[in-house]
């Protein structure tokens, strides 16, 4: 068939163009497709809800700007969720590219709570190199690994850190991570070693890898990618950037599915024809 011939020789830049337009269009003219909150996301919400109000929670934001669309909405909603429960939050960053981004996101959310003060209600301990080694050292004392915070302040002198010694000071670890080091390492080095309950928000690429941890109860809840973030926003009654991105996400998925099917349809002939 000549039509199929054309398709097979199609310059891939046409596909790029269609993909671009399909993602762009719903961002400008939203379709507002309905969302349902799935079980792993509900587990995440429940685990944070169960934390006693006013306790101090550890949150590790292990990502860099390449994870913005998936990680930032999760960070925002989780931080808001915790501050809304009057929890104090201690934040660490184990990705070198991340601390500046994480601090901007946290500061922006903290401004919504005029009574929450930096150093009293939350602290950003910033970045530390060493991946698993940092996690294990924190087990003997959080401030041992982070003598100074993101702003260069002595972290032991901050009011929020006075009630924090090691992992036993936290009822929950909230980990938002894009890869290594991230959820896997927190499970291995901290959840397993120090018995600290944890929930995780991760990129979609790595989410399937963490389902075994979810089933085993090593993590109590899981946000997988932008869809997970959008469901979390829905569960919290927010309409953030993840929710706004879901329509574009749907169209993008439809297009990739269409590409797989069409690509196979026009290539039903023997493989020899190619070479």
């Amino acid at each position, binding site marked *: 068939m000549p039509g199929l011939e054309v398709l097979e020789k199609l310059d891939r*830049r046409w596909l790029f163009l269609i993909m671009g337009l399909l*993602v762009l269009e719903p961002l400008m003219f939203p379709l507002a497709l309905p969302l349902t909150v799935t079980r792993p996301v509900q587990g995440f919400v429940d685990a944070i809800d169960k934390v006693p109000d006013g306790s101090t929670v550890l949150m590790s934001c292990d990502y860099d700007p390449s994870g913005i669309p*998936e990680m930032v909405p999760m960070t925002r909603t989780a931080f808001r969720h915790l501050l809304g429960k009057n929890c104090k939050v201690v934040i660490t960053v184990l990705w070198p*590219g991340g601390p500046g981004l994480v601090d901007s996101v946290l500061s922006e959310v903290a401004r919504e709570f005029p009574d929450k003060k930096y150093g009293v209600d939350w602290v950003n301990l910033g970045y530390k190199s060493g991946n698993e080694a940092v996690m*294990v050292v924190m087990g003997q004392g959080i401030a041992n690994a982070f003598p100074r915070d993101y702003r260069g302040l002595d972290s032991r002198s901050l009011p929020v850190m006075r009630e924090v010694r090691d992992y036993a000071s936290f009822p929950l670890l909230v980990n938002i991570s894009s890869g290594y080091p991230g959820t896997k390492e927190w499970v*291995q080095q901290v959840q397993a070693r120090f018995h600290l309950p944890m929930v995780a928000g991760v990129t979609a*690429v790595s989410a399937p890898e963490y389902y075994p941890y979810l089933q085993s109860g090593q993590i109590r809840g899981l946000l997988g990618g932008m869809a997970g973030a959008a469901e979390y926003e829905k569960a919290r009654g927010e309409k953030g950037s993840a929710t706004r*991105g879901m329509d574009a996400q749907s169209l*993008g*998925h439809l297009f990739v599915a269409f590409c797989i099917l069409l690509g196979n349809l026009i290539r039903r002939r023997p493989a020899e024809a190619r070479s």
Partner: protein
Amino acid sequence: MSLHLSHDFGIWIGAVLTLFIFSFLYKDNPFYKIAEHLFVGVSAGYYIILYWWTVIVPNLIEPLWKQLAHRDLWTGQPLLQARPGLFAAELGDYRGWLVIPGILGLLLFSRLFGKIGWLSRWSLAMIIGVYAGIKTTGFAQGDFVAQLQASLQPLWKAGDPAFTINSVIFTVGLISSLLFFFFSREHKGTLGVFSRLGVFFLMAGFGAGYGYTVMSRISLLIGRFQFLLDNWLGLR
């Protein structure tokens, strides 16, 4: 819907660089190369200074300085509490002992000077020893024993056929996937059946992985478009 172009010079820079990189989709071109090289340069500079200010200074230089000079590194004020005992270490306060990681860190730079490059092996050996130890036990507990323990689940529950079916499928899937990676015997007979079954489970797993990877990549694009539309063009 109307445009509210950003007045922030920084946003413009970010937007222009974003477009430079997108131009790679058409073909490799000087604009892409400019952005690419600038990116490598800026991130290398950023990394050096980041490690200096966030790790080497607070975790090494400052505690050593306090111990040796009895003064605050930044203000130069004498410290109120004297800290006797240069090597009187306790948990989290290693005082003079910190000289050791300091020296090992500097030894790494011997690699820049060909002949004494072997000195960096001592530092490397120390790092590798620490990580080999941490990782071995971390995987043993978190990924091996804990995962195995969680697999020991009842295969049937009276009055819950869905649970029974899923539990059996899961257990068979786990065992057959494990046996697919069994290399001490040819995959014939019963083992052959199991390993064939294992491949099917693995493929279903990879399919799920494919779907989730697609989701991640499209999200990244959405994020960049949101930046261009919201922050730069200010479409509202």
